[in-house]
């Protein structure tokens, strides 16, 4: 019990993020990058921006999923080791936004990978993003963490 709460604590305090844009207009992306700058500074929470999918715990996606990017997004999600979380930022990532129904748009991110947190907005303010991330981290306080599946078949979009 003590060991698992220590591990839980370390996961809460040190979430490393990977940022992937799967077809966004850049509005959400510049707000995500603004989170690392002195005014908002998410490194206070231990969040680090990692370059490689293998190092990251949280996948932050922005933008709709276009037909070109659908396969890439799935691959990146599969490359991340467990336990992992997905945060969909922006109205486009949640449901397709203004582009829903266009001929090269699959829709929101949850058509391709399972999502843990949705942060709506167009784009959401950095404060809203921080609020969403902190809520996601606090949800780890419970006894069971999400995403303990192992093996290849670790995703099942509805």
């Amino acid at each position, binding site marked *: 019990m003590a060991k698992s709460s220590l591990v839980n604590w370390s996961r809460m305090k040190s979430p490393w993020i*990977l940022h*992937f*844009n*799967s*077809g*966004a*207009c*850049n*509005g*959400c*992306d*510049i*707000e995500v*990058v*603004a989170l*690392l*700058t*002195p*005014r908002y500074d998410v490194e206070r929470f231990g969040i680090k*921006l990692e*370059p490689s*999918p293998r190092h990251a715990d949280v996948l932050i996606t922005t*933008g*709709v999923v*276009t*037909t*070109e*990017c*659908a*396969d*890439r997004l799935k691959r*990146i999600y599969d490359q991340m080791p467990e336990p992992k979380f997905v945060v969909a930022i922006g109205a*486009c990532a949640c449901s397709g*936004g*203004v*582009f829903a*129904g*266009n*001929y*090269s*748009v*699959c*829709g929101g991110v949850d058509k391709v990978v399972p999502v843990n947190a949705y942060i709506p907005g*167009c*784009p959401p*303010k950095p404060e809203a993003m921080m609020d969403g991330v902190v809520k996601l981290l606090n949800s780890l306080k419970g006894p069971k963490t999400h995403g303990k599946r192992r093996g290849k078949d670790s995703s099942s979009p509805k």
Partner: protein
Amino acid sequence: MASVEEKIQVHLNDQLGGDAPQVQPIAKGKVFIQVEPSLLKGIVKGLIEKDELTGLIAITGVDLGDTIEVMHHLRTMETIFTIRTLVSKENPELETIIDLLPGANLHEKEVTDLMGVKFTGNLFDGHFLLSEAWPKDNFPLRKDAEIPSIDDLIKNPVVIDEPESIPGEEKYLNITIGPQHPALLEPERFQLHVEGEIVIGVTPRLGYVHRAVEKACESRTYMQDVYLVERICGICNACHVTTFCQSVENILGTEVPARGRYLRTIAAELNRIHSHMLLFGHAGLEIGFQTLFQYTWRDREAVMDLIEILTGNRVNMAYITLGGVRRDVTDTLKDRIRTDLAKLEQRMPFYKNLYENELSLRARLKGVGIISREDALKLCVVGPVARASGVKIDVRKDDPYAAYDEIPFNIVTYNDCDSLARLKIRVDEIYESIHIIDYALEHLPDGPIRVRVPRSVPAGEAVSRVEAPRGELFYYVKANGTQSPERVKVRTPTFANILSFVHMAKGINVADVPPAFVSLDPCFSCTDR
């Protein structure tokens, strides 16, 4: 002083004699002609010989039922000159102009991919903007296109395991800077063909952010299109909306009130300042200078605050609309904007000094990624990229819109043609923007900020362009009397500048590719729409 239309008519008569078509001006300074496809290349050649600053802006395809109308929009003799040709739908073929203007390469490929017009001399396999799984001979922008379902498209993805080589040159190492890469904020795939540490060539694959905006515009009303068009690019959203609104207002013939025009100018210049600061912070990140990135973005927050108090939103302004702007400014707001911009202007000498004198920046950026003046003209680049190579083009002076004809300001050019010049020019443009906003606030005229426009737009067409932070942004709108447009064509500045990256990457070091690339300020959501 002959008007532009007369000058062009005289030139055409000289060149073609009896075959010369009649010039049709559709608005002040924008002329159209209609010719047979065989005369097209000759006219373009004549124009290039007459005016060295001639460049291709865009190639638009419009589906007219049995025929497809292909329009070549050229920037020449200080006007937008459009050459219309008609090709049949069964056998749509035209001659390519990439031997005269290499910058037309991607424009022709886009029309081939989306509309089905083949340009002899510029054919290719596979798709350019559409995904590889899209069926062949299915052209989505045509009115009678059958759109396949999304599930069919993503069911069998085309997976690329090995990077592709240049055919015949398999000995080079191929590095993929792929859709997910820390250097890129957006997904696009670039394959670098490398020998040792020198890049031999670059093969780009665009279309990862293609969200089918042009087709979607045709099925929404004009007001809904304002929302859609704003989200083509989050960074230069004010410019997209301005250009679209200007095109529709040109068709309707409405005159935006003076106060509305000045407020549009202020919003556009604030947009320019925040975009330039974003870029040279990002450039610092690309060359490993984290401290510069953090300082720049900290100072940029002041501008974001100003945008928020002016328009209500930090990024997507939702401020400019058909007929004017949506909110007014009060006197306290004017004072706040002026004080904050004065503080920002005090910070700018620090950045200017950094880019002039800092050793490690000069070591990484000086002499990297050269685009000579001749190449800049032939590749039809626009914006700060062109101005850093000595080509003095700026839509705010060449074709004034909003309030730019009443506000004095300077155009900055450099002759160095390298990445350092492209970044320095943006620092100078920030100074100019701050002065423009100060002047506009001081001389803000009274009156209404907006006029109402009717919901249905009568049949007609218009072109309009605007100087976005990255360069010239061009729209063509065709209305057909209903509440939705018939065709909206968007040509973004990065689409024109991408070829220059392919050109300048030949022969540079692999480690120089990120700084050279980011000095172009690429915005792929604009490119792919």
